[in-house]
């Protein structure tokens, strides 16, 4: 047999035997399939959500939900119910979420009133110590309702589980008529009156500040009632020769619900008023000062306004 014929025979034999390449083709198929499966399930046909909870809402809708909670709190003054509603968002710090939102809203002049409502709710929650845990909320609601002697809290049931909202609403009696659009007189008794035109505040204290722990050129305003309790939602006006700006207390409830601050610019003289027609703190300027640690800073002011 010639070498050529032998070569041909060997090649034939070799081609008739299965190649021992291992199971790599299986792995290739698995990867190809997995890639297609992932692409299809995450991009082409992602899961459509139905029956969701506020916790999984997109951030814009969460903000809209928070605003509704704040406005409804402003309308009915029911902190227990507002806390429970906010708890549905499962925020680690509900008041922090509200404060952030208020600070974003306050930059838009058309949303000042909304920002004020949100800030009021944030400071009310901080003052009451409301937390998102259901047990605390239940206690808060119970405590709120306990202060209204003739009213009875009635929880409403849920669709299917305990995840749904249980809030309490006062009822005058168990035999209220079928809805007629008539206002329930019991609601009015729970309304927390928030003055829109605040009474005249007097300037109780005015101190220059040159503190390394405080931002440069800051006017720190504290507003209190006659008993020294911080007041949130009070309009503060900072005016200078050519203009004015206003802001509200309560936007930073972590510091103090009655606290607000404003950053001065060098070369300007400011006049600060709390409320609509209160006493004015005038001649507020900023300049270089040496703080206790020896650093040069821009001085600020600490103002305390209070009801007489």
């Amino acid at each position: 047999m010639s070498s050529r014929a032998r070569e041909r025979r060997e090649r034939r034999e070799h081609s008739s035997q299965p190649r021992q390449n291992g199971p790599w083709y299986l792995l290739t198929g698995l990867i190809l399939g997995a890639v297609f499966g992932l692409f299809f399930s995450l991009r082409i046909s992602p899961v459509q959500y139905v029956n969701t909870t506020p916790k999984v809402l997109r951030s814009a809708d969460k903000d809209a939900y928070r605003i509704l909670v704040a406005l409804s709190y402003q309308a009915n003054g029911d902190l227990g119910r507002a806390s429970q509603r906010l708890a549905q968002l499962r925020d680690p710090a509900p008041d922090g979420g509200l404060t952030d939102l208020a600070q974003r809203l306050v930059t838009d002049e058309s949303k000042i009133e909304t920002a004020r409502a949100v800030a009021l709710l944030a400071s009310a929650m901080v003052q009451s110590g409301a937390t998102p845990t259901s047990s605390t909320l239940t206690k808060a609601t119970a405590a709120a309702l306990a202060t209204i002697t003739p009213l009875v809290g009635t929880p409403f049931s849920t669709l299917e589980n305990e995840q749904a909202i249980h809030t309490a609403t006062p009822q005058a009696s168990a035999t209220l008529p079928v809805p007629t659009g008539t206002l329930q007189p019991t609601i009015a008794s729970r309304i927390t009156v928030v003055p829109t035109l605040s009474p005249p505040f007097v300037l109780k204290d005015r101190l220059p500040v040159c503190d390394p722990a405080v931002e440069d050129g800051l006017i720190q305003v504290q507003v209190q009632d006659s008993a020294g309790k911080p007041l949130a939602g009070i309009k503060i006006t900072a005016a200078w020769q050519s203009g004015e700006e206003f802001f509200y207390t309560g936007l930073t409830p972590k510091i103090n619900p009655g606290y607000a601050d404003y950053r001065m610019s060098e070369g300007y003289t400011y006049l600060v008023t709390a409320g609509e027609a209160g006493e004015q703190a005038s001649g507020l300027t900023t300049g270089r000062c040496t703080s206790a640690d020896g650093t040069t800073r821009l001085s600020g002011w600490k103002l305390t306004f209070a009801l007489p």
Partner: protein
Amino acid sequence: MRIGRILWFLISILTGIALGLLYGWVINPGVDIQAPASTLRADYRTDTVLMVAEIYDSGKDTAKAAEQLKLLGEEDPLYIVQQAILTAQDLNYPAADVTLMASLAQGLNLNAANSAGTAVP
């Protein structure tokens, strides 16, 4: 033998697809869940409508209420409130709450009627 390899290759592809779908639809469907408020469960929708009704009750601003109800979808605001009232009744909401929602529905209905009245001379 070749047919067997093709068969196993197809089976491995199908297995991969199944694993991919299982991951994307079941195991980790919401890597970044950003659900709109229109997908809220009925009881949460009802509570949202109740919030709008509470706000409406203090100012009787129908246009604002209708705007706020848009959060729950593009349906007619009156329809949204009516659905919420039905759910509230199913869930035994306190009568005071149902009354508030009924008042809102009345306001929206009146507003719609007025709009229809002005549209037709």
